[in-house]
């Protein structure tokens, strides 16, 4: 069994995981449906969102330079990182230069992608995860299983037990409100005492140099404004030309992610504290990370750079809904993760991800930026085939089938014999076990085929 198969089997055997995923994804699906139906012409809005991102991705250099110039003009410092390691090094150096002992981190998938939590630990810098779900993940010493609900794989009952085991003064009453209070007691004073605040970015706005974050807990604001230094790590594809474009994308993001019209907190950070500001960091650093994105653009994955990380594709994915996010094994799970992970971590160790999909097209249907995810997955499958990564049994089986299917007369003969053999294995209409098709008959019966094929019957009946 591959690593994916093993992880998927463990996930399928975990009834609590199924409950947890279904609660959150099911609610998100229902709320998104309502939000989209209440939106005047959501399909046109999707087309516009896709066009905005396509334009930016096609002129990435232009907008990045514009963003850099405006961010610098606002007083921020801009750093460029080609790789994950380089990005981490820049962040660690900035933390060390400011003498930071602890950093408050506001949830960022890019931070996960570049391995920032690990890099901070190696550098001996304390890390406080301030997003509630990331706090849960940190307490449990796990990795996020969903890009907007990192602790989606846990039930509230499991979280309650975790808080009781790990919090200094945990809740007593088992209510959501009491649990939230327990997390607040645990986090608030430590957040306020952090030396550096680190965030990602939902959008980078080129014509102002502003960085936009969205949260539902206000944790970004509380972890980014009080510390002396604010460090942003952002993928270079996060750029939008101007505020009206950002607002359009925000409308798409919130509705697609949770079905809300807007997140509770939407904040634009433009440079560090100005002399007239009552508060804010003294330094603001923005680390712009490539980590394979330029290569993706050049190698047929430009469509994927439109992604705004809303999670709608995974919320609506029949496979994700069964196995959750950890089974995918990468930073990003679900359909978007199945496309991104081979680009970030290599195709060979991740070939399962591009195949563990029924190509049903639901993800593309709900994507707010119209990413043709099934087409991109087919592209990976082609590459996997070309590079000889597919198992020999699969290559031989399909090759033999295609060879025979290209010779119609031989095909009729071979299939006639195969049908006869198949019929011998069944009784009363069904075949309960079928050699070479155990994957099918382990879980379901195979209908017994008719005595002769359509073509044979048709020729017999219709021959003039």
């Amino acid at each position, binding site marked *: 069994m591959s690593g994916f*198969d093993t992880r*998927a*089997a463990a996930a*399928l055997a975990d009834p609590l995981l199924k409950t947890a995923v279904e609660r959150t994804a099911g609610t998100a699906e229902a709320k998104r449906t309502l939000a989209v139906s209440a939106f005047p012409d959501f399909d046109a809005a999707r087309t516009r969102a896709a066009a905005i991102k396509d334009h930016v991705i096609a002129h990435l250099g232009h907008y990045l330079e514009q963003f850099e110039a405006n961010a610098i003009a606002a007083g921020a410092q801009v750093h460029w990182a080609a790789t994950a390691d380089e990005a981490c090094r820049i962040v660690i150096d900035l933390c060390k230069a400011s003498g930071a002992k602890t950093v408050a981190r506001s949830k960022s998938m890019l931070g996960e992608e570049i391995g920032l939590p690990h890099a901070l630990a190696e550098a001996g810098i304390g890390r406080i995860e301030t997003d509630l779900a990331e706090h849960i993940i940190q307490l449990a010493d796990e990795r996020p299983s969903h890009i907007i609900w990192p602790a989606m794989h846990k039930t509230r009952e499991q979280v309650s037990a975790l808080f009781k085991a790990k919090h200094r003064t945990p809740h007593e009453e088992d209510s959501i409100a009491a649990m939230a209070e327990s997390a607040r007691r645990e986090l608030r004073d430590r957040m306020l005492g952090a030396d550096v605040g680190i965030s990602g970015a939902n959008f980078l706005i080129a014509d102002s140099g502003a960085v936009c974050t969205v949260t539902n807990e206000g944790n970004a604001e509380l972890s980014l404004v009080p510390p002396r230094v604010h460090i942003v790590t952002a993928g270079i594809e996060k750029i939008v030309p101007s505020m009206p474009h950002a607002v359009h994308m925000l409308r798409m993001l919130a509705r697609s992610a949770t079905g809300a019209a807007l997140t509770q907190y939407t904040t634009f950070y433009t440079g560090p504290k100005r002399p007239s500001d009552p508060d804010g960091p003294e330094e603001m650093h923005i680390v712009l990370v490539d980590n394979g994105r330029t290569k993706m653009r050049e190698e047929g994955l430009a469509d994927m750079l439109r992604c705004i990380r809303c999670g709608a594709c995974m919320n609506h994915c*029949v*496979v994700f809904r*069964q*196995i959750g996010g950890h089974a995918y094994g990468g930073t990003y799970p679900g359909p978007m993760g199945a496309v991104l992970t081979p680009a970030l971590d290599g195709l060979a160790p991740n070939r399962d991800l591009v*195949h*563990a*999909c*029924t*190509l*049903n*097209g*639901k993800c*593309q*249907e709900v994507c707010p930026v119209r990413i043709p995810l099934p*087409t991109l997955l*087919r592209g*990976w*499958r*082609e590459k*996997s*085939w*070309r590079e000889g990564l*597919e198992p020999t049994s*699969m290559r031989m089986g*399909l*090759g033999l*089938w*295609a060879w025979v*299917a*290209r010779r*119609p007369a031989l*095909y009729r003969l071979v*299939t006639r014999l*195969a*049908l006869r053999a198949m019929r011998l294995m069944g009784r009363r*209409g*069904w075949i309960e076990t079928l050699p070479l*098709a*155990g*994957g*099918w008959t*382990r*879980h*379901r*019966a*195979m*209908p*017994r*085929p*008719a005595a*002769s*094929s*359509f*073509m044979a019957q*048709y020729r017999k009946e*219709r021959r003039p």
Partner: protein
Amino acid sequence: MTQQVALFVTCLVDLMRPRIGFAAIRALEAAGCDVIVPQGQTCCGQPALNSGDHAHAAALAKQTIEALEPYAAIVVPSGSCAGTIRCHYPEIFEGDADWLPRAQAVAAKTYEVMAYLDEVLGWKPESISIDATATYHDSCSGLRELGIKAQPRRLLKAIDGLRLAPLAGEETCCGFGGTFCVKYPAISNAIVGEKADAIDATGADLLLAGDLGCLMNMAGKLHRDGSTVRAFHAIELIAGMGDGPAIGEEP
């Protein structure tokens, strides 16, 4: 004037359930078509295409194009095979000056059978009756690649005595996915298990859909679970063949 149409039977119908092909012929003939079954056809190449085997997908696509291009219209009793020809053949031959125009020409005149009967011919079944409650699953490729949703329901509503019970999650994949179901059997099983439960919960006598692969998956699971729901391709009922054996029944 009778409309001449070519039937692309699909390999699965050819081998596993020929009566779907005969049902398609019967309905098309009732609608006034002259149905021809081109002899050079086998498989459209979808399994190769979805496995990343571009060379074999292209070879089978060429054979299928050659078999079907002489005809004015091509009708297919499967949303996913029709979708392969309509949507993916032109992609397969992108940049191929010889084959792209031929692929596009065949794609433009290829129809899923129920969409053809309803949308192109404006036909409805007449004096066909069955006393049963059916539930309908929207197979994904037909639904999302070809927009097949209302057409089968309009045709089914014209059958006397047939009641349609809505299926919760009717647009949710059944977990078949071609080779997916044998490559990832446990995941596929979890998905089809939920689908089978939803089908049972409708209280319907019959499960209908437009793709034999999905139907075999759902019917095989329902049978294994001990359900009494009987599965048919919708065209079988539309052609008045709903009184025959369901999938997995023998006459």
